[in-house]
């Protein structure tokens, strides 16, 4: 039999019962389409989460005060721990640790902020000028805090876009009008010198609802303390991050006079750790979605096997005849296997198109970002062809083993 003969025989056989072939194909279409669409949604979410973490800054290492600061912990331990980090620590890291590109200590406090008859409760952050580069803060109007403003503890403020909208209105007002306005923080007048560009939510907090002031100003007018809440360190390269993290840990342990690393009064978080932790969660989610879709693919495969077994029974006499006129076992196996594979391949192609379409529609609604990867398309196609072979093989083998005499007598 030539390939062309097999294709013709397959077409004739499958088109002989269009409704049944169509329904069997539908089973595969649903299976493949759901695999592609659900995996696309899962991978899209993973990519979205990763990019939002990346928007925090690149090669970022975060140092925060130790867990002793946690509310509810014994007062004895809390002494000195909340104030465990200082701007001097930040300077020491910048000068004492290799492969550190930049360091940005920061203080944050929740404050009631007022401007011209409006007010909002927002996070006020005392930051140094380096914060803009370390944490990827872009200024859309005006300027960020300068070194001289930091040194003189100037009462100036840079508004995040959400804070700016809360204070100066959502519509109409161009942000350039806002520069030069005055706001009151803790009953002190601050002059707005800039508005930052939107960064979007990072999952847990809104990076846009924030007001930046010079760190020295925050320490002097808002917290009245020399300590800082967090130190952001930008490593020189991605490869250096692990080493930088270890060096910072040992430097701070030495500076704080702590010999046991388990008792450290600070914690150092590597952005890569965060990305891999979140990624592993979303990859598990993708896998789960894929597995659920895989079950429907399996059911589709069983549908094929069911149809092929029915077909073999119905066509017993035809098989007997084919064997009588000289078809070998291989000929019969090939023919029935080709029918099963044709069902899955047709279903696979339609399913891929449908899955792609569903992903595009979901993406267009804006609810979830979807990413259809060539890998998942290839996998779905491969799996559907495999299902055709696996679930088609048993019926095909059964057909090829029929005794021609009995098959011809079959009523």
């Amino acid at each position: 039999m030539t390939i062309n003969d097999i294709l013709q025989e397959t077409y004739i056989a499958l088109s002989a019962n269009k409704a049944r072939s169509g329904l069997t194909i539908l089973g595969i279409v649903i299976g493949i389409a759901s695999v592609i669409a659900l995996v696309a949604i899962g991978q899209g979410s993973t990519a979205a989460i990763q990019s939002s973490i990346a928007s925090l800054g690149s090669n970022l290492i975060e140092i925060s005060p130790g867990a002793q600061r946690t509310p509810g912990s014994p007062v004895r331990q809390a002494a000195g721990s909340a104030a465990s980090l200082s701007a001097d620590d930040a300077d020491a890291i910048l000068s004492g640790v290799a492969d550190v590109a930049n360091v940005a200590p920061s203080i944050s406090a929740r404050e009631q902020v007022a401007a011209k008859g409006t007010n909002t409760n927002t996070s006020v952050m005392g930051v140094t000028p380096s914060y803009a580069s370390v944490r990827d803060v872009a200024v859309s109007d005006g300027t960020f805090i300068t070194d001289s403003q930091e040194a003189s503890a100037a009462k100036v403020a840079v508004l995040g876009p959400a804070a700016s909208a809360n204070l100066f209105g959502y519509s109409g007002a161009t942000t350039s009008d806002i520069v030069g306005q005055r706001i009151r923080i803790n009953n002190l007048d601050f002059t707005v010198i800039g508005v930052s560009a939107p960064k979007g939510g990072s999952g847990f907090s809104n990076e846009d609802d924030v007001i930046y002031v010079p760190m020295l100003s925050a320490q002097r007018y808002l917290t009245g303390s020399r300590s800082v809440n967090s130190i952001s360190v930008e490593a020189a390269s991605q490869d250096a991050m692990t080493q930088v993290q270890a060096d910072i840990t040992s430097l701070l342990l030495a500076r704080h006079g702590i010999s046991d690393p388990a008792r450290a009064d600070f914690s150092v978080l590597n952005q890569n750790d965060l990305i891999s932790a979140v990624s592993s969660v979303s990859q598990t989610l993708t896998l789960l979605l894929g597995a659920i879709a895989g079950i429907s693919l399996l059911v589709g495969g069983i549908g094929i096997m069911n149809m092929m077994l029915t077909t073999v029974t119905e066509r017993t006499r035809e098989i007997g005849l084919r064997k009588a006129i000289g078809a070998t076992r291989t000929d019969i196996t090939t023919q029935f296997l080709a029918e099963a594979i044709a069902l899955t391949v047709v279903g696979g192609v339609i399913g891929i198109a449908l899955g792609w379409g569903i992903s595009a529609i979901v993406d267009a609604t804006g609810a979830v970002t979807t990413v259809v990867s060539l890998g998942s398309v290839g996998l779905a196609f491969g799996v559907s062809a495999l299902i055709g072979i696996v679930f088609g093989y048993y019926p095909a083998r059964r057909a090829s083993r029929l005794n021609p005499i009995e098959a011809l007598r079959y009523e």
Partner: protein
Amino acid sequence: MLELAGITKTYGEGDAAFEALKGVSFTVSDGEFVAIMGPSGSGKSTTMHILGCLDTPSSGSYRLNGTDVSTMSDDQLADVRREKIGFVFQSFNLLPRTTVLRNVMLPLIYTGVPPEERALRARSALLAAGLKESHFLHRSNELSGGQVQRVAIARALVNDPVLILADEPTGNLDTRTGELVLHTFQRLNEERGTTVVLITHEPYIAEHATRIITIRDGRIIADQPNRSRRTARPDDYDDQ
């Protein structure tokens, strides 16, 4: 040339064993028209299965054109059936919803005849079997019983077999169309020298052959030339 020597066939084992053939020997020369006759249960179907290489004997030898086929494997038997034997069945066994031409071309698919040659050979076989050109592209389920059986004969002829084996070919037909089918066999036998072995339980049908072998209880009880051979006369009837 078919040579059967001491063929036995036993089904089952032990106490349940049933000996369908108890030593059958005969020879059919090329160009003969032989009827194998016997009541049901006589062993004529088993004889046909062995002649048609659908089954192998328990003992004895069967030589088809000089080749011993009695000990061949399933796939080797399939090769022999494909190359050397054409079957005509009582129940026609055409593929439904498939054109006459395609039905006749079916054996050629397995023989590996090039596609462009298949239609030519199928057409000439159909004409030889007495079917009109206008029917070639009809579907097999659109034809009458006599036409269907002649399509089946054409399918048996298309590979130029050594032997055409017809199992009760008129069993599902009325007298008139049965006569037509027998006429086709007689004509093929005389004009082309095709060897025909016809299996039947009706003496009237068997009398169209040149030689009648009678089987009863697994043994040949008579094997003689048919001196009063009937000639099928489909012309006595209207052509469908």
